[in-house]
């Protein structure tokens, strides 16, 4: 029971959760017969990726990545004294070295021993969640329209109806439906995505 391989596998339990969720979602999307279930499967699939990112950002023993105000003040004072707060464009590669150097130089600063979790993966996931919401809303809007046009959300049934109408690539005149009856529910979810994109 105490074999190192097993321990390692158990220590990476977050990945197991991610993999199980991912495969569940993927299976639902592939095996779906119902359009709503496909959307649910897609959501589970995406959620597993959110989890992958968020667990990636956790540092063992790390706290929330917010610098306590008193530490921030003390650091600002120290930084001001050494005059090391240049902000501008640097050539690639030098910035990271400089920051690392700056960090090393200020290792004696108050609060330098606080370990922060990595906030970046969570921030990325905020954007990805917004994208996920937009996708889900658009998908549901499309399902509503499909339901109105076909009267069903079962894919088999829809294909049957299509086949009854003729070959899948036939566009018969009588099927040309009045475009005015549809409102553009699908276009509205796009807006949040772009507003978040630059974040």
């Amino acid at each position, binding site marked *: 029971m105490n074999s190192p391989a097993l321990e390692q596998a158990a220590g990476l339990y977050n990945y197991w959760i991610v993999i199980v969720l991912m495969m569940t979602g993927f299976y639902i999307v592939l095996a779906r017969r119902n359009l709503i279930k496909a959307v649910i499967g897609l959501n589970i699939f*995406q959620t597993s990726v959110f989890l992958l990112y968020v667990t990636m950002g956790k540092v063992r023993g790390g706290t929330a990545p917010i610098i306590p105000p008193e530490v921030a003040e003390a650091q600002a004072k120290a930084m001001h004294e050494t005059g090391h707060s240049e902000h*501008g464009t640097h050539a*690639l590669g030098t*910035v990271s070295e400089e920051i690392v150097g700056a960090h090393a130089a200020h290792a004696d600063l108050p609060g330098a021993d606080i370990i922060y979790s990595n906030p970046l993966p969570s921030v990325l996931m905020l954007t990805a969640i917004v994208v996920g919401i937009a*996708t889900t809303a658009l998908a549901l809007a499309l399902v509503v329209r499909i339901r109105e046009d076909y009267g069903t959300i079962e894919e088999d049934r829809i294909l049957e109806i299509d086949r009854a109408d003729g070959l899948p690539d036939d566009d018969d005149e009588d099927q040309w439906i009045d475009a*005015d009856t549809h409102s553009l529910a699908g276009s509205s979810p796009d807006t949040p995505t772009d507003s978040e994109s630059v974040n």
Partner: protein
Amino acid sequence: MTEHLPILLIVLPLVAAPLCVILHQRTAAYTLALLVSWITFGISIALVAQVNQTGVIRYNLGGWAPPYGIEYLVDSLSSFVMMFVSGIGAIVLVYAPKSVDDEIARSKHYLFYATYLLCLTGLMGMCVTGDLFNVFVFLEISSLSSYALISLGQTRRAPLAAFQYLIIGSIGATFILIGIGLLYQMTGTLNMADIAARVPQENGPRTVLVAFSFLVIGLCVKMAVFPLHTWLPNAYTYAPSVVTCFIAATATKVSVYAFIRVIFGIITPGFAFDYLPLDTELTILALVGIFVASTAAIYQANVKRLLAYSSVAQIGYMILGISMSTPGGLTAGIVHMFNHALIKGGLFMIVGCFALRLGSVKLDDWKGAGKTMPWTSLGWAIGGLALIGVPVTAGFISKWLLLTAAMEKGMWPVAVLMLLSSLLAVVYVWRVVETLYFSEPTAKVLKAKEAPLGMLIPTYVVLAGTFVFGVWTTYSADLAAAAAAGLLGATP
């Protein structure tokens, strides 16, 4: 102001889209969209010129230096792709109003143009950004707006096609997201150049392998490489004509661009092609795809679907060029992106003209249209020649480059198969030509008028482009060659 050009390229269409919603009036929205798309085109031409003179342009979003901030990067490859994508976007909008009036409800026009601009934003953003996560975000902006655009088609199959595309496309995008996440885990950075410098490639740790596989498969879905192309025919067939023109000419090309970036900008070709047998796999997939899709195109009764299958085949040529990973092959792949965008854009515009006048895109309904719609029919013949790759057309340039690259590499069977596959293109182009010119016109066709000049002129501009760039290659093949050299040389 010139230093802000890379960001203006994205922000202008991004701002114009909500302005279209505020204007609410369809002519005003159209005018704004038209104006902004042409300004975008102008900016990308200026960027091409600037890159030619001064080299790579970098722009730090928010003043944050890379690797921490998002860096926008314009080099010879991205400026080239931006140029033709925004060019097609602008010219399709000139062509659009009549067709949009006919196929989309008037109350929704302003939303249509807003969504169109968002799609353009996403495509431009994918080209210009140097940040891997930003690529995902812009990919999703362009994809989501293209799902919405496709669902505007007239038949009830349009929402279904859009839904199927959405499901497959979202899975692809999520795969890309997983790949990005794993690369971030390995390197701790999202800047492409920074990842390239940090990612351990020599022995290929398992995480990098997995990340790379996810990225490649996700992008293959978006590019519609052969076995993952199933979303494409339905999406192109049931979308409104204007949307098909725009998306067919640009969306898959930009994904190909992202693919090139991943292979040559982040992971080295050595890792992808020598350590992993990706080149052989891609070559086989590309060739199988070319033959299967071309053969499928021959049997289509619906012209839009015929062209859609032809698009899958043409993607095969691009992948073939990229998988050679020689300067010649890469140049051929890149220049074929440009040429195919022109050719397929032009052909879909012709289809739009027929759809407007004949109310159908089925081949049977086009019988004898050569008599009543001579210019439109001639346009098909011209575009068809370019698609086959007849000399002095743009299609010839890319196929010639691809052929010579294949021979240089000693891939004789590939060269022979490519020539054979062109014969298949002859067959499906000829089927339509035969129907147009050598069939008895039906009563409906006899009543049809020639397509309006407002649509014919932009179409012919694009088709003339296929000839211009078939002879004068300074701004197509030469730029592509420079881009290929930049990719294969020291990566920035």
